């Protein structure tokens, strides 16, 4: 599992990264691989929500590709990682981010 949210200022997708920071890059996401780690991530989610530093933090399942890069399991999260599939000039994909993620 990883945790994502929307940034307060512009609503852009951000990932919960080590040290309690938030990153626009999927590769920076803290991955919870065990049930105990997922429980800890849920605690961090509730705390982030209470602090209000981001909007709508939520956990979602993630896998890895052959190169070991993180790939969100559900197509909704893959679309969030890229941007609108009908406007490749907008969202993280426009900056070349997450090019290894495909729908």
């Amino acid at each position, binding site marked *: 599992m990883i945790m994502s949210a*929307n940034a*307060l*200022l*512009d*609503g*852009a*997708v951000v990932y919960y990264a080590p040290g309690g920071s938030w990153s626009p890059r999927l590769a920076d996401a803290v991955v919870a691989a065990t049930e105990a780690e997922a429980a800890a991530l849920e605690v961090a989610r509730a705390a982030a*929500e209470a602090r*209000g530093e981001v*909007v*709508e933090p939520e956990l979602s399942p993630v896998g890895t590709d052959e190169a070991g890069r993180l790939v969100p*399991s*559900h*197509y*909704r999260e893959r*679309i*969030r990682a890229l*941007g*609108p*599939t*009908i*406007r490749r000039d*907008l*969202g993280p994909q426009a900056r070349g981010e997450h090019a290894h993620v495909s729908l």
Partner: protein
Amino acid sequence: MYRYDEFDAAVVRDRVAQFREQVARRLDGSLTEEEFTPLRLMNGLYLQLHAYMLRIAVPYGTLNSRQLRQLAMIADRWDRGYGHFTTRQNLQLNWPKLADVPDILDALAEVEMHCIQTSGNCIRNVTADHFAGVAADEIEDPRPTAELIRQWSTLHPEFSFLPRKFKIAVTGAARDRAAVAVHDIGLRIVRNEAGEVGYRVLVGGGLGRTPMIGKVIRDFLPRTELLAFLEAIMRVYNLEGRRDNKYKARIKILVHEIGTDAFIARVEEEYAKLDGPGVNADPAEVARIAAYFAPPAYETLPAVSQGFEAAKARDPDFARFAATNLFPHKIPGYTAITVSVKPIGAPPGDASSDQMRALADLAERYSADELRITHVQNVVLPHVKLDDVHALWSALVEAGLETPNAGLITDIIACPGMDYCALATARSIPIAQAIATRFADAERQALIGELGIKISGCINACGHHHVGVIGILGLDKAGVENYQITLGGDPGEQAALGQRLGPGIDAEAVPEAIERIVDTYLEIRSGADEAFIDTVRRVGLDPFRPALQPRESILEAA
């Protein structure tokens, strides 16, 4: 067009100042997200998948060129240079930054616009026939009624915390182009036997997860009694509508659960108790509002324009446009033009800021400075001289807005779907693009005739799929986008909900399935004058069912 008086202007300015402070308090941490969310929603600011989204109200879809230019400026300055016209005749910006929104609202207020009542459990922006005031089949312009309701309902304290959102539509014509039967309240302007003008009142229509056709609860309501009668309906709903379950909170569920007769009895009982004269609008105020919608100064022109006829004979592309995108105007020598915001392969309803400015220029030059946003996600120039149509069309060609498909199979309604929307379960726009591309040939589209495809990316049905002649609903089936197809929906005066054709299919299979449905129709229609909807009504769904099966299985069966 309606012009703000000092009260309208003050209300909007105060609201912006209030929201500016609320945003500042969210940013400095004095407001929690939980506290802030209802405040931002009351100002039309949503959070979507990739960014915030600002929904700007376009009351009954009417705009002037100054307003559209301002929307283009806002899209350029604070967003990504485009906007999306919605099925509620509004405009959505998909990328505003939170801190900029108060400035955007100020810029809107400069041109008498706002985002109030575009979200939340209140009476939403009132919609109307996009050919209001010009349609040849009209009894009366519905916009004065819509504006009266807007003024009555705006920030009305009694109706600011309804069980759920509440949508009202008004039409004044014989043909219902405002889909009034699928609104919480639908008003049809009608004439009684004595020749008086009043309202037929429908209540309890709606789409979403429990689609319903509205029930007539008053066949003829005298026009002077409108607001008190609406207030009686709202009171019954406010008191008895369900607040225990969000999915059962719309008025359609109340009407359905207690029955139409019991609902009518409750409304009439409430109505009898109301102080009608205290609630109803002063006739002088009604007349003041109506005066703003007086028609422009039309010229006296012959019904036939020689220049227009000659241009059609000369230029087949123009002739095709003229055959599809013109609508009969009540004044001889004039027409209303539908500008399709559905170029083949483009996202339905998305207009760039350049296109908005081009449309504003054309409205100013050729259409008495007026535009309409349609619930079909197109733009109407309502007052164009036939003599000017060719020059206007040439300008549309330059702006990439000349697609001759109004009302045809590629004039598809599609909600934003999972490309933007946080509620979506599947994408809508790529499906619309794939279907439009497959049916791109204009001649074939003309052969198929009037056919409205409507696509929603979740059961909330913003894409009106239930009332699409062909409706498409995108769902998440075990982590894969899956699409259900319905046939036979009708948003008009013979309102009907589409019936499911069969099990859902994958995204890649949708264009092929639509093609086979259309081929079946072309094969079995009684003639070129039998529209798709009439064929479905005549033969039912069975002849269309094989269209959903993979082609190989049909070949095997044969």
